[in-house]
């Protein structure tokens, strides 16, 4: 492949959109790490927290039919896992790397048995049944990117592409700016 076609692929509109969409969960996860690390907490359970939150969001938005409750459920589920991390490492004096590993194992164990109850079934039909204007649920598919957490055929990477104007993304930019300000003023 010559350099021109490579650059052509890299700077194609679709690639950039997909890159922004793919970067969102990574960047939010990175912020999770940043906030933990700034307060001296070693957090290798971010993966598990994200998985649990994604699961909770998918369930909540499938059952209520609104994005709002999905986001609330995700926040609560992520916070619950973080609380577990805190209780284990502060109250029970567990090494933080081990309690992070516990959270990851736990999330794998909780999520996968639940997944068959969700996509592919009646609930997913409801999840996928949103109108074109209300595309938010695809964002949850972006957080559910683990290929083994969804039955094949329910997720296509292209689904996320046109969705680069998701409100969570603006939250992300705000976080970035806030952190930059914090960094420069401290």
């Amino acid at each position: 492949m010559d350099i021109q076609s490579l650059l052509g692929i890299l700077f194609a509109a679709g690639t950039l959109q997909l890159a922004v969409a793919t970067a969102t969960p990574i960047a939010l996860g990175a912020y999770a790490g940043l906030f933990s690390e700034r307060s001296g907490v070693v957090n290798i359970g971010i993966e598990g927290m994200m998985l649990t939150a994604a699961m909770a969001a998918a369930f909540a938005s499938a059952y209520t039919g609104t994005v709002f409750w999905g986001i609330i459920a995700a926040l609560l589920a992520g916070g619950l896992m973080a609380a577990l991390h805190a209780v284990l490492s502060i109250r029970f004096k567990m090494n933080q790397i081990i309690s992070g590993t516990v959270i990851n194992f736990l999330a794998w164990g909780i999520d996968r048995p639940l997944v068959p109850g969700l996509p592919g079934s009646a609930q997913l039909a409801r999840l996928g049944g949103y109108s074109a204007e209300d595309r938010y649920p695809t964002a949850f598919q972006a957080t559910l990117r683990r290929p083994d957490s969804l039955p094949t055929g329910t997720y296509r990477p292209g689904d996320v592409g046109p969705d680069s104007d998701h409100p969570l993304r603006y939250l992300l930019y705000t976080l970035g700016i806030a952190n930059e300000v914090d960094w420069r003023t401290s």
Partner: protein
Amino acid sequence: MEKNMAQEATDTTNQEPKKSFRQRFLKPLVIPVLSIVTSLIVVAIIIIFTAESLAVGFEKVGKGYWGIIDGALLRSSGLINTLVATTPLILTSLAVAIPFHAGLFNIGAEGQFMMGALCGALVGIYVDLPPVIHPIVVIMAGVAGGMLWGFIPGLLKAWLHSHEVINTIMLNFIAISLANMLVRNYFKDPNPSTVQTLPLQATAELARITGRLHWGFFIAVAMAAVAWFFLYKTTWGFSLRTTGQNPDAADYAGIRFKRWYIYSFVIAGGLAAMAGTIEVQGLTRVLPVGFDSGYGFDAIAVSLLAANNPLAIIPASLIFGALRIGGDFLQIRAGLSVHIVSIFRALILLFVAAPEIVRAIYRIKAKVGEEAEVVPPTRWG
């Protein structure tokens, strides 16, 4: 100098009063056994409350748990499969335990396992050697690859103080992707229906004893014994453990602790790689794409369950091996998800690493000196 200091210190520890059988062998078992029992109870509660009704829930728990015991341990075919799964677990757990004694976390056993499988498989496929020498050379090649993979985080830790957890996690991704990429693009079997390497030469295979069980199991058990001897009966092992307990004291005693950071990771890499090589030689006899199956991550839980004692790792691996095989029976017999085993894994790890929870549940009083101290986390930066 180094030897004398170490020798003196060993002598002083030997002068402690001899412990009774009860104290030496039964007391350390209390927390692990109670941890496993408690996890079983907690998972049973989860299953019962997620079932359609209480009666169905109890039936599922009974069928599922009996399925694990019956399927993984009582039937000869299940027992063989359990022992086959135990083999790589013993070696990867040793690869976690030895750096742990040096105060380091090795989350990279999975990557080292893959490097061993890759290097061993390539020598087994493309090098022609006579029968008895070939398997030995294959194991040595795999171990060398794993040692190199372990050397990288060790060197980075000792030289640049970069955190070994981050480095080993990242090297996992690199090793797994590298192996998959090489198999897919360069060493693929020309037969279009399979994405795997050519089969190993017959001379490179480890013989099977019965069914799928191969001699690798005994190699793994022997390595556990060697690791125990190394850690507790040699000056090297003493230096390694001193490094883990207090690097400053080790430095003062003339132990070059930075070197032991590197050595412990090199040894760990070799052991995890041996698991990968043996798995290829004895079990699959080809290297397929997606060969990694989480032995390196299970190893963290196994190693903690065994309190990082190489000999205790053998029964602990057997328990996790049985859980791995039993997971299928959980699904077949009781219609439960295989991944419930992952909840087991998390809970056992949780209770073993936080014995205060178990002590609180069963009202066991901790002796002075047994209470957990706050472990200060080491930050990445």
